């Protein structure tokens, strides 16, 4: 109970506000890293049981939400430890993003029931509730890990295991060389090991990409709908709405103009972000600008760029479209019902090699199925289907993969810099343990077994 934990404490789904709770000795320090008060006061200097108004900022100091921070110092808090609650605007995407920032700032993702467990251990909960809590605790932790491992069937599980085994291979080589320096066996070649570590890093990165698919299924596809005025953005939206009932609509934030809308697009929850332009009449393209486009592109999973096919594409359109990465961009040529020849369509597609270009008529309902299918293909480009299961959709797994990636990178740098092998082994062990968290395995005897099953050692 010496580390600091954090989790979203409000139920998932759309709500007016969402709360992220941080508990532990570093709670205030961590909160101060992601929260800047309007008056510049640090949370750690605020008296207990006070509310501070401010903004949540990301790693680069960019504001991402307004929030209230509630400081409650131990022992007078729910858990009995120092607690900071960040009351943010609702919406799972936003909360998820803020939670990620909090975790990056040094907190650990709370286990299920862990706040209650801490509360109990610190004597904050009545004894009569102890048994219920014990049930919770014993049902979670290891079982939860095992269940998560079971859920990770098929390709992803096998992949993680394969990477883990290769790391173990390297560890066994290094450790055998350390513990049996005079034995006669082939040492691992440094260059090959570096190459192997690079490849493993790439494989983990591929796995991390599946987190996007998994996350999208769970929290929605962040979509930007944009284009010049009067190209038919609203009618496209309406057409999509007609086709698929919106599962949640219009949850305006209380202090910002951003609207998050959820649509169910053939099973994919679609979240429209930054749609303010839809209601404006002035030239959206100019307002957006290339700089802004980059910023949006970074956050969005999908950009629908709508063009009036009857008017054709402008230089401004082209410049802007090319400012977005092709794999996130879907160019929608609307109003094709007003066209009578095909040549012009081709030209537009030719101007945008590598970009997805689709022709629809929102008004007449032409090409909407294609649109849906294309979005689906773009989103699941890593080969995963919704409902198939084997995806990283859990922030804990993502966390573990990222940590493992860091440790592998440290090991690689170490080898390249000529760092002694026992230190390289420390990083490799760390990488293995991070992956082991996902598959529910611990290092312990594994190393010793690996050493002796591979090498002929001994006097």
């Amino acid at each position, binding site marked *: 109970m*010496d*580390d600091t934990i954090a989790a979203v404490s409000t139920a998932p789904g759309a709500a007016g506000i969402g709360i992220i709770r941080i508990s532990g000795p570093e709670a205030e320090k961590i909160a101060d890293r992601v929260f800047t008060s309007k008056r510049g006061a640090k949370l750690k200097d605020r008296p207990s049981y006070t509310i501070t108004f401010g903004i949540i900022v990301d790693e680069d100091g960019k504001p991402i939400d307004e929030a209230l921070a509630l400081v409650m110092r131990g022992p007078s808090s729910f858990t009995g430890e120092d607690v900071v609650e960040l009351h943010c605007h609702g919406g799972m995407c936003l909360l998820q993003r803020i939670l990620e920032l909090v975790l990056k700032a040094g907190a650990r993702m709370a286990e299920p029931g862990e706040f209650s*467990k801490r509360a*109990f*251990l610190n*004597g904050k909960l009545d*004894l009569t509730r*102890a*048994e219920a*809590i*014990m*049930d919770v*605790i*014993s*049902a*979670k*932790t*290891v*079982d939860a890990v095992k269940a998560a491992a079971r859920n990770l069937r098929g390709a992803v599980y096998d992949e993680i295991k394969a990477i883990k085994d290769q790391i173990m291979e390297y560890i066994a080589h290094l*450790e055998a*060389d*350390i*513990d*049996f*320096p*005079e*034995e*006669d066996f082939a040492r691992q070649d440094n260059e090959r090991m570096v190459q192997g570590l690079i490849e493993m890093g790439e494989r983990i990165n591929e796995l991390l990409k599946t987190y996007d698919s998994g996350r999208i299924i769970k929290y929605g596809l962040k979509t930007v709908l944009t284009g010049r005025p009067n190209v038919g953005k609203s009618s496209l939206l309406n057409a999509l709405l007609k086709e698929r009932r919106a599962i949640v609509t219009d949850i305006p934030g209380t202090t910002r103009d951003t609207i998050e809308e959820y649509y169910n697009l053939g099973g994919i929850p679609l979240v429209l972000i930054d749609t303010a332009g839809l209601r404006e009449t002035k030239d959206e393209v100019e307002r957006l600008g290339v700089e802004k486009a980059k910023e949006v592109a970074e956050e969005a999973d999908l950009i629908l760029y709508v063009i009036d096919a009857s008017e054709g594409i402008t230089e401004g359109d082209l410049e802007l479209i090319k400012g977005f990465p092709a794999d996130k961009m879907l160019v929608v040529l609307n109003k094709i019902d007003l066209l009578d020849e095909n040549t012009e369509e081709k030209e537009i597609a030719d101007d945008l090699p590598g970009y997805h270009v689709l022709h629809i008529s929102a008004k007449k309902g032409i090409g909407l199925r294609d649109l849906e299918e294309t979005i689906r293909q773009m989103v699941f480009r890593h080969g995963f289907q919704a409902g198939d299961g084997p995806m990283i959709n859990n922030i804990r797994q993502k966390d573990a993969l990222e940590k493992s990636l860091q440790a592998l990178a440290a090991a690689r740098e170490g080898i390249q*810099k*000529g*760092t*002694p*092998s*026992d*230190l390289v*082994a*420390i990083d490799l062990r760390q990488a293995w343990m991070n992956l082991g968290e996902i598959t529910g395995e611990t290092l312990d005897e594994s*190393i*010793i077994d690996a*050493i*002796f099953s591979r090498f*002929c*050692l*001994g*006097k």
Partner: protein
Amino acid sequence: MGYEAGSYDCIVVGAGHAGCEAALAAARLGCRTLIVTLNMENIGLMPCNPSIGGPAKGHLVREIDALGGEMGKNIDETYIQIRLLNTGKGPAVYALRAQADKQAYGRRMTRVLQSQANLDVKQLLVERLLVNPRGEIEGIETETGAVYRAKTVILCTGTYLRGRIIIGEVSYQGGPNGQRAAIKLSESMKQLGIELGRFKTGTPARVDARTVRLEDMSVQPGDEEHEYFSFMTESGRKINIPCYLTYTNERTHEIIRNNLHRSPLYTGKIEGTGPRYCPSIEDKVVRFSDRERHQIFLEPEGLDTCEMYVQGMSSSLPEEVQQAFLRTVKGMENVEIMRTGYAIEYDYVIPTQLKLSLEMKNIPGLFCAGQINGSSGYEEAAAQGLMAGINAAMKVKGKEPLVLKRSEAYIGVLIDDLVTKGTNEPYRLMTSRAEYRLLLRQDNADLRLTDIGWKIGLVTRERYEKYLAKRRLLETELQRLKKTMASPTDQRIEGLLNRKGSPPLRQGITLYDLLRRAEIEYQDLQGIGLGDELPLDVVKQINIQIKYEGYIEKQLAQAVKFERLENKRLPEDLPYEEIKGLSTEARQKLAKLKPQSIGQASRVSGVSPADISVLLVYLEQKRRKESHE
């Protein structure tokens, strides 16, 4: 039938590496102590390889020394070669290893025992343990009927318990190296309810150096510049006798394969489990059949003998087969065997019956140390012996036992592994078993443990003062380095950086930060007049502490976390059967093992983190209930 022969605070059974450390520790801590051996000529005997140290083992010897044990000093005075291994691999795994003059080693240890105050040394065979009606140890009875009474007894019987020697089709009762076995003691232990297991180990033939052409082999000398095991050793023996390297070949393997049907390992004559890290040559040939050759080291057994130990050729094949395959090796075509290689089977105590103090959970006052606990290796034995000796003395004095943590010493890792996890093969310590390897370096064993040894009372004033002086030098100099600035315009520094291919300074930094650069060593500062004249071990310590600070800090933080769970004590009488929420397996294992802390409980196989949470909750409930009453 028996007669009363005497009474002691502590009786140590066996005078091998565990027994010697145990008896010396107990006697030095003021206990009236008796050590008994089957053969007075075999005190401190090395029945297997003639060397001490190596990875993890060398670390153990340094730790034994820092706590006031004898092994480090004994080998420093009797080595014939010394080498620092692993020097290219980082300071945590540097490992000192010495070739010993076996006879000299044993002779010196005999002298130390026989000149130790409070310590009687006797040759006799123990047949029975005596326990009082309360189930506490009371003493021993010998084969001649002598009864010695004691408050504590430490069993250090090595491989002698129901020992059986096997050479091909031949097998007979016996201890190592032609000694007697201790047959009846095993029975007596079983009657007291002690659970025994059976292990096997082996040793290669010793050959006559006069019949070997060493010039056909490659020479393996020791280091010219020596480090020593003991903190107290100022200068060494100036002896550097080489070992020799040669290889088996296809003909060797063929002879072995053709005679496998005569190997007791494959005929089922051997039931005990052998160690994976010490396979016999027949095992290696079978398991790694793709290997064209295996290496063999010929190691001299001492200055006053022609015997050479054939490392890598441990075997229990028949004598004539051993002779035949040895003669296929280059340089050994005419070799004569002086002692035949053999396998030995022996009883050991299932170590999970012990507390971390090495006292039996069910028989207060009875301690076990060394190979009897399922370990192997002289160093592992000595480390346990030292701790058992200390803790028997603590028991006699009515004090708390000394238990070293896994984050504190390799000794802690060794004993915790044995006692908590048990072992299904003779246990060898390896650096890869330590979670906090970077903290448990051989270079800082003195800094880690001398204080503890001093508090216990084993460290002499002379050693303690020498240690304090070293620590003072080190701390003062580290402070100075942190405060002293290196200026970018200082020509001495410019020149040094230039010579070392190190980027020039852009602004002033402390000398401490300058030393973080991999290519700059403290010695370089000394060279340009910015360092002090300091003893070499202090200089080395400064380099290591500064260069690896990042990694060391990381492990220190982990160790602090770890220790918190270690410090949460579990009462011995915890009613595990009644604790709701524990898994059935955890409940049974914990009830049997009675771990002493939450940390130890978490390492018991079959105990999950969920079980640990349940235990924590239970303890808290209990605490609150008690504070309400």
